[in-house]
């Protein structure tokens, strides 16, 4: 990578028209990210036909702006309303909402914006520096390696289960079972659909997460009789932004999230949701105050937000270097490259250096724009919390219903939303953590797919997971992660006895 390429990119990105489209993309992305259900894949798909006549560089800049802008917006409702705007913002609900309940909504929003900026920028640096070699590495991922990755993801349940590990495991199993509802990927045999046509495609993660987190929380608050302002909003802008201590506490979370997110993004099927869970789990595992995670620690917001933003840079690596999409949004961007008259594949960068480097430069600019857009809006967003809860309840329900309905324009999804809402309330009452259930839903199908493909490859032999070095390494890593709480407890006990 030469600096002259980046200068070329800057000269492309800094044209007035490209700056304008970058701004349009990130602004639209932020709005889309705030609204649950209306995710970046749907928005990019809806706008794609309109970009057919646009300059390819401008179109790609705008569409990519929507992609990473949505990551910024997704944390807003997660923190303020316990309502994940994007699937990758589910984990932010865990500590972000608790911070808001403690009167630190502004600090949470601010740290989310800063984490997004830092990690988004690092993700672009990663894209710029390591795109070709890393995408070649990702090609080594076959079904056994994906299985290993999913196993690592499942071990995170031990970090997400607050209080009772047994209940955490049970939640995770429920999530895995929910994930396999629908038609089997290999045989099309219906599983647990009970004759409902709407369930053939499975249960959407947005329906489950909005129901469990948002509706469940509302029911919980109604039971507690909280009708006035729940969340204390401090006065003065200084109190509404993260403190120096918050930034200091989050510095490793920024790095952890950036690396995890970027790597997860390069792997097709990795995705920002898994990345955010992974980063949260790792942060909790290595933190000196891991027992406080879930009660409103700033690292619990910084790590997942960093991961889900850095994932953008990673996801663009296989797309732009190999023509392989690694997520829904990048799949639509791939279609866009064709619509714009480009040839996705290994020669894209060589044939269109201005396009690639212009995009890279615009992502630097876009991240700055998003930081400038989001930080001053923190006090405005925080003011929403001054509304009495009896006003917030129907507001949250309305936004939830719109978000869920917009997934598939299906009233059946709204029935499921209410069902999950009751489930979320019941889980909270009984002390079952919700995050492992969502994790199970995210991983279940992919785990099964990887498992069955691997066993087909090996004609039924389990040795395939251990004879391939990358898969064996991942499974060994998962086992080590499982041992972390055990080792930590042993160290604590020996310290107490001394």
């Amino acid at each position: 990578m030469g600096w002259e390429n980046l200068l070329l990119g800057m000269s492309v990105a800094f044209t007035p028209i490209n700056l304008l489209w970058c701004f349009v993309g990130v602004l639209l992305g932020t709005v889309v990210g705030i609204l649950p259900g209306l995710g970046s894949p749907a928005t990019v798909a809806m706008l794609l036909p309109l970009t057919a006549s646009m300059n390819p560089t401008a179109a790609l800049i705008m569409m990519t702006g929507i992609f990473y802008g949505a990551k910024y917006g997704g944390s807003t409702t997660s923190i303020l309303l316990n309502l994940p705007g994007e699937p990758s913002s589910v984990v932010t609900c865990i500590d972000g909402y608790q911070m808001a309940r403690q009167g630190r909504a502004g600090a949470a929003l601010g740290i989310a914006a800063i984490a997004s900026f830092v990690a988004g920028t690092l993700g672009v640096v990663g894209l710029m520096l390591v795109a070709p070699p890393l995408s070649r590495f990702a090609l080594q991922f076959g079904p056994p390696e994906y299985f290993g990755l999913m196993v690592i993801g499942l071990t995170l349940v031990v970090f997400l289960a607050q209080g009772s590990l047994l209940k955490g495991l049970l939640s995770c199993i429920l999530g895995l079972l929910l994930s396999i509802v629908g038609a089997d990927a290999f045989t099309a045999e219906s599983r647990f659909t009970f004759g409902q046509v709407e369930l053939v495609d499975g249960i959407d993660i947005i329906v489950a997460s909005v129901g469990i987190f948002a509706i469940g929380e509302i029911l919980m608050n109604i039971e507690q009789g909280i009708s006035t302002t729940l969340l204390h909003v401090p006065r003065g802008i200084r109190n509404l932004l993260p403190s120096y201590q918050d930034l200091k506490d989050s510095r490793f979370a920024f790095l952890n999230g950036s690396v995890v997110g970027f790597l997860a993004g390069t792997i097709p099927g990795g995705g920002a949701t898994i990345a955010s869970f992974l980063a949260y789990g790792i942060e909790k595992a290595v933190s000196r105050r891991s027992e406080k995670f879930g009660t409103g620690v700033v690292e619990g917001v910084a790590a997942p937000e960093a991961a889900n933003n850095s994932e953008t840079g990673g996801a663009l690596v296989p797309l732009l270097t190999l023509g392989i999409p690694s997520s829904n949004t990048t799949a639509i961007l791939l279609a866009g490259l064709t619509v714009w008259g480009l040839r996705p594949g290994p020669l894209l960068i060589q044939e269109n250096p201005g396009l690639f480097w212009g995009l890279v430069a615009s992502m630097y600019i876009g991240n700055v724009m998003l930081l400038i857009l989001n930080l001053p809006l923190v006090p405005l967003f925080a003011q929403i919390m001054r509304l009495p809860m009896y006003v917030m309840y129907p507001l949250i329900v309305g936004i939830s219903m719109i978000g869920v309905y917009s997934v598939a324009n299906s009233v059946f999804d709204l029935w499921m939303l209410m069902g999950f809402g009751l489930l979320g309330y019941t889980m909270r009452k009984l002390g079952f953590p919700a995050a492992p259930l969502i994790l199970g839903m995210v991983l279940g199908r992919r785990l099964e797919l990887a498992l069955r493909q691997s066993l087909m490859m090996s004609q039924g032999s389990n040795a395939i997971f251990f004879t391939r070095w990358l898969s064996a390494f991942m499974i060994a890593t998962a086992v080590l992660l499982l041992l972390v709480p055990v080792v930590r407890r042993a160290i604590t006990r020996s310290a107490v006895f001394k």
Partner: protein
Amino acid sequence: MKRPDIASGLVLAGLGVFVTQQAARLTYRDEFGPGPGLLPFWLGLLLIALASCLAVFSLRRKEKSGEVDRIPSTEFGQPHRISRVLLAWLSLVVTVAALNVLGFIVSLGLLSFFLVYVVERRPLRNAITVAVAIALSFLLLFRAILPVPLPVSPWGF
């Protein structure tokens, strides 16, 4: 929280039995390898095992000091509180049922009124204000400004 844990353990174990039974009807293994019944079968068994552990441990366990319970402390089982929750939840269900008849905006307005006036027992004026404000806001934002598809009534709104 012993009795609820025992009950939830038993319910989940029952669910595990159901899942295992349903999975047994699916293809466990076919000529190409594992079938669609493999994972749900073993998940069902795991669910039975872990849920049974929960029920059994809860029967034996004493309350440990320092055992962290992350959910807000509420008196589980107070009838008047539970009935408020069920009333609120039923209103959400009725709202969904009414969507195809009344459309989204009207249904949301009525739900807002019900939640504020009946469930939260706020003054009538507050309830009407909130209901109208929310319905109009959603109409403006999601129908007029953002072309987001919403369920509509047979009368087009």
